[in-house]
């Protein structure tokens, strides 16, 4: 049985259909990279899986149970955690409070404050600082740490490198490797193809709300993924 099973999922923003009939399955231990251009529907798909967005059709099963109609805080308690795009820290709370507030009502597990700080050493120095006063890299580390505090079975990461300085992206990815080494299941949305392919075991590419490519990272060349990314092959076959 797959850990996460999405079937024929449709999601809309008003009249705009952002996700069109997406089906995918994610196995325990996979690092699943979801790539695609701006507006391809990656974020909406992730938010729908996390319960922050209501789908118009289709189903989401997690560990065999249908979670499609479940509110997001319940899904978190089952083990689906998400790091939202733009980090969305609680800016009025300190880093420590941001982490604690997430760990309060969730699953028991290996992740606690100490382990988060070991994986994200750059947080150690700024525990008492407010979320709004941090650098982008520290904010992103806090956001990921906050999600880990809920002891997720699958971690959804939306655009972790967006808006960060290259050195901060390196730091965040270094820390992510610690997390991956601990045997996590991760769905990673990333616009930067190179980075995504470095850590991922499986890759899927979205184009205009559909998944146009899905498979093991090694099965595709970079060119094939780039073509899918921009929809080149499809345009070519039509023309």
């Amino acid at each position: 049985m797959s850990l996460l099973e999405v079937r024929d999922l449709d999601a809309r923003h008003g009249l705009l259909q952002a996700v069109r009939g997406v089906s995918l399955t994610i196995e325990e231990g996979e690092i699943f990279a979801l790539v695609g251009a701006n507006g391809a529907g990656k974020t909406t798909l992730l938010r729908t899986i996390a319960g922050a967005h209501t789908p118009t059709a289709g189903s989401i099963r997690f560990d065999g149970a249908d979670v499609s109609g479940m509110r997001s805080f319940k899904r978190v308690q089952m083990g689906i955690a998400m790091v939202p795009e733009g980090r969305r820290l609680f800016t009025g709370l300190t880093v420590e409070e941001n982490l604690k507030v997430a760990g309060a009502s969730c699953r028991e597990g290996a992740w606690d404050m100490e382990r988060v700080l070991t994986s994200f050493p750059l947080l150690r120095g700024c525990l008492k600082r407010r979320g709004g006063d941090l650098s982008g890299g520290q904010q992103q580390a806090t956001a990921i740490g906050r999600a880990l505090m809920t002891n997720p079975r699958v971690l959804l990461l939306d655009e972790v490198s967006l808006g960060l300085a290259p050195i901060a992206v390196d730091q965040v990815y270094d820390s992510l490797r610690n997390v991956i080494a601990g045997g996590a299941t991760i769905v990673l949305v990333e616009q930067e193809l190179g980075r995504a392919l470095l850590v991922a075991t499986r890759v899927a590419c979205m184009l205009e709300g559909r998944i146009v490519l899905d498979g093991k990272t090694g099965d595709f060349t970079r060119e094939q993924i780039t073509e899918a990314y921009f929809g080149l092959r499809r345009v070519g076959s039509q023309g």
Partner: protein
Amino acid sequence: MFGVMRVINLAHGSIAILAAYVVWSLAEGLEISPFLALLAVMPIMALSGWLLQRAVLERGLRSGQLVPLLSTFGLAVVIDNLLFEKYGADTRSLAPNVGDLAFESWNLTDDIAVGQLAVLTFAVAVLLLGGLHLFLGRTTLGCAIRATTEDPDTAELVGINSRKVYAIAAAIALVTVALAGTFLGMRAAFDPYAGPAQLIFAFEAVVIGGPGSLWGTLWGGIILGVTQNLGSQISPQGFLIAGHVVFLLILTVRLLVNSSDLLRWVGSRLRLSE
């Protein structure tokens, strides 16, 4: 507390008066102290707050910011008129029920005396705000309330049941309203339509102190109260006018000067003078 929840509760004053009436009924009917009656009323108000949030405000919030505002306005009208229907136009007070406390005072010097009830009211206000401050700052639930008010969607994404958190906040809010209403009833007289006037004072105190700040609200209340009483020294009608004038003045200053700059400036001055 509703400031924390970012809901403007136009029924705040009316609910305070409602609480005062319930306390009065219990105190008169059972011949018990209003303080005892208040203890009984507090859990009822907490439950009402929970219900108010779940049944009215939460549904309203789904349709935007304006709907909860309008529903609390409607609620205020309903409460005022139900009170009028039940208790009539007579003015009531809890003062007769607290005996000597209503007029006893401590003489600090030969010229200065402070009313015991006034001191008690102030002490309760400080303890309540201090308690709320510690609760919001130190406890996990307090953190969850702050996180939820800042960003309810993200709060849900880290496992916080935002609806429950809001309902708890509303329950706490109504308990504080019950306290306010009871102390108002002991200090002064109230009638069924006294709520909206109290609402104006509450709003002025919050705005003077800065929205979202608990200690600011205490300062706002002190500034407003002192000004009103200074105003009434000048002229019997000066009570309300002085309060409104200082409110408008501070509001204007707030609009002109970025409040955080002002606070930083005041803060640096205070540190220099130490």
